[in-house]
């Protein structure tokens, strides 16, 4: 199986995980942080592998990755 297909499946599984948490109202602080971490991973996979930034120098990869980190950390801080 191609690596990109494995990443696509991982993205779908992370999304299913998020849906299950929401559907069954599993909203403890621990699970919300796991959810935020999985959202970061999803975004990171899209940036690195779908956008193809894993193949370019750090400065171009850094902008969307820092953006994603700032957004997720801000949401986590306000949740806490």
């Amino acid at each position: 199986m191609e690596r990109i297909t494995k990443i696509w499946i991982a993205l779908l599984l992370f999304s299913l995980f998020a849906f299950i948490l929401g559907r069954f109202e599993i909203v403890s602080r621990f699970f919300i942080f796991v959810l935020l971490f999985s959202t970061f991973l999803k975004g990171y996979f899209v940036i690195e592998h779908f956008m193809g930034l894993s193949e370019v120098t750090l400065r171009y990869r850094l902008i969307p990755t820092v953006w994603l980190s700032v957004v997720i950390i801000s949401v986590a801080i306000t949740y806490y």
Partner: protein
Amino acid sequence: MEKEKLDYPPGDFGVWIIIYIELLTFGLFFIGFAISRKNQLEIFNTSQLLLDQRFGFINTVLLISSSYFVVKAIKIIKHSQTSESFTKASSYLLGTIGFGGVFLLIKIFELASKYSDEINLSTNSFFMFYFILSIFHFMHVILGMIILYNLYINTKAGVYTKDEHSGLESGASYWHMVDLLWIVLFPLLYIIR
């Protein structure tokens, strides 16, 4: 040995400027949403219950899969130059447009059902963010689909080659940005409470 990194992102540089500006704009909205949520926790939690998470989940699957299809199309163009490969790559792009179309239909249904329940921008802060973010993202999906349609026509006509496909990569990067934004929007609007 590690593969040498390219000194340039995929596609035209102009599209990356647009992508960075869009990310910044949406990022401010996301942080604004999170801060407002902290200040009006009860309103945000009760309002969120009025959203159907199934729509959010299906739309996430659609956008992630559409992004995957775009990656597949580019991979084909990068590795083969036959008429069969042009057809296959354009089919993937057509699939992407189809998924984008279904996304829009679901979103229209979702927004219309909220309006028919007399929920709108001025209902409360949660729904103000919900409508602004949804409609703003919706417009980006429409623009992305117009771009993808052009890519589809060009790919079918064999315009892109193994060595020159920056137009295809530019459009693809824009579509991945639309996907990336939704990846953050989904848990923010539908799940986190």
